[in-house]
């Protein structure tokens, strides 16, 4: 097992480096060189010119990449071209709200998808099954920004019971209850997506398991039906779901960009949109890279969990 984890980490490293290279290439396409983005923009022009030569901006691209990468390893993502703040600080201060939003949506989404998918599979072709599958199709087909606007229309404008923007009420202390109220609508939107994507995964995974011989064996042993389903079927059906959950992370990041924009949620997504609008390329690139690193780490964790849970996987090769 230990060897497997080590091997998996070693595969992740070149991918991580590759991600920084892709990021660097995209950065080079943006106006202003990537190394420029490392220099604090408050420095006067003459000093900047001297710094350019010192930093070797006339050097070939790979030398520039290496110098940028060296800064990166020290946690230096450069400075914002607009606010002159270090990009890393800006990202860290916005990370909390986004992780809260994504985490709650993921948990609720899975809590809906798993039981519904299992029930749907057990009662295949029943009314409940049709309803769950149709609901799942709706969840993946309704654009999240449209759902968000609809919710604002109904709950904020029409019924006036939920706040339409921000994470806390302006001017208030912003206690737990206040954040919870602000969280409801964005979470509903992201949850609809998560549940929509996963109901059918769980359902088809469960349908496959229900045909397995070992379930017939379990029944033949005289086990109760609930025991057969909960112990033997559900546990096995959920193993492939782990991988699917890993794939949810990058999708949720994308969803957060749109949703945070609509609900003015002060997280990574809103920062991404505002930096894009103000053409703050150093911040955009820092965000893009951070998101990619989080996704790679999440995938790594998913793979390791999968190996831990599924005894059929051989750890060594």
């Amino acid at each position: 097992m230990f060897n497997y984890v080590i091997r998996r980490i070693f595969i992740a490293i070149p991918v991580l480096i590759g991600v920084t290279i892709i990021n660097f290439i995209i950065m080079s396409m943006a106006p202003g060189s990537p190394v420029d983005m490392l220099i604090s923009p408050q420095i006067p022009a003459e000093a900047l010119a001297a710094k350019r030569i010192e930093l070797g901006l006339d050097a070939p691209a790979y030398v520039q990449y290496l110098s940028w990468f060296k800064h990166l390893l020290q946690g230096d993502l450069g400075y914002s071209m607009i606010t002159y703040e270090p990009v890393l600080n800006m990202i860290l201060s916005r990370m909390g709200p986004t992780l809260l939003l994504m985490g709650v949506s993921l948990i609720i989404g899975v809590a809906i998808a798993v039981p519904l998918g299992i029930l749907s599979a057990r009662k295949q072709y029943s009314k409940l099954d049709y309803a769950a599958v149709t609901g799942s199709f709706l969840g993946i087909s309704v654009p999240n920004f449209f759902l968000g606007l609809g919710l604002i229309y109904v709950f904020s404008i029409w019924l006036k019971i939920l706040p339409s923007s921000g994470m806390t009420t302006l001017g208030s202390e912003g206690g737990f209850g206040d954040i919870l109220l602000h969280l409801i609508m964005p979470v509903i939107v992201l949850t609809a997506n998560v549940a929509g994507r996963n109901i059918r995964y769980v359902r088809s995974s469960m349908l496959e398991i229900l045909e397995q011989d070992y379930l017939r064996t379990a029944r033949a042993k005289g086990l109760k039906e609930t025991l057969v389903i909960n112990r033997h079927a559900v546990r096995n059906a959920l193993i492939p779901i782990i991988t699917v959950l890993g794939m949810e992370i990058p999708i949720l990041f994308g969803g957060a960009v749109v949703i945070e924009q609509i609900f003015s949620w002060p997280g990574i997504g809103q920062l991404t949109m505002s930096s894009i609008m103000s053409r703050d390329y150093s911040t955009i690139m820092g965000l893009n890279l951070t998101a990619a690193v989080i996704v790679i780490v999440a995938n790594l964790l998913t793979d390791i969990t999968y190996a831990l849970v599924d005894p059929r996987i051989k750890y060594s090769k």
Partner: protein
Amino acid sequence: MNLFERYFTGRKEPQLDTDMIWPEGDESSIKLFTRRFKKHKLAVAGLGVIIILTLCAIFAPLIAPYDPTTVTESFGAAPSMDHLMGTDQVGRDQLSRLIYSARVSLSVGVGSILIAVAIGTILGLISGYFGGWIDSLIMRITDMFMAFPYIMLILVVASIVGPGLMNMIIILGVLGWPGIARLVRGNVLTLKEAEYVKASVVLGYSTPRILFHHILPNTVAPILIYATSGIAGAILDEAALSFLGLGVQPPTPSWGNMLASAQSLTVLTSQPWLWIPPGVMIILSVLSINFVGDALRDALDPKNTK
């Protein structure tokens, strides 16, 4: 059904007779496909919607009552006999814009998927067939592209390359291939071991001939299924990008940028005809395509015995 058979068959389902697996006579594969597809009522309805939308997109100039970019006398007007779905804040006819938007959505959907499928299929074929370091290299590059959150990467590239319909198609296409490459590679790995492929190697066929004439035709079904849901995804992505102002730019109408107007509170509260119809159109088209994709999955499944 003899005792032996009854003993070894499933608890509830009776064993399928061979007649059911191989229906009477030899039903042609197209007939079989149609029969299976037709079982999905929603998919048949979806196909109808897609056909209507396609016709609308092609014959938009003939159907639309107004030019989608021409400013008429009334602006922000509620639906009336002159303007069946009202006009937007600038005074353009909403119905005409909805019709013309079908062009944008369908061309982004189909165009970007064609690019993605072309890149993904070729890389997947090469990766799966040759294996070794070429395979590792291509698969690691695929991993790298998949590590970036898709929407975020598209936003970043769109902000650098610039918005517009053609750019949208290219960006979504060029960034959309990794999933297809993985899918094709997986299929090639299985097919490579098939007797008939080994036979063609022994017969001394050239590698491109084996790849494109013997392996590719047998991976068309999964690619088609993937591409169908890909079209739905691309339409959603284009809508999201246009909504955020980085996709198709006004005055060219797109359902996404028509919805962007609802970010203003007056439109959201008092002019619902401006934002509900484009949203419904997106749902309708994406839902239809997803239903069709699901039916295709069923109808093209070789394990399907019904």
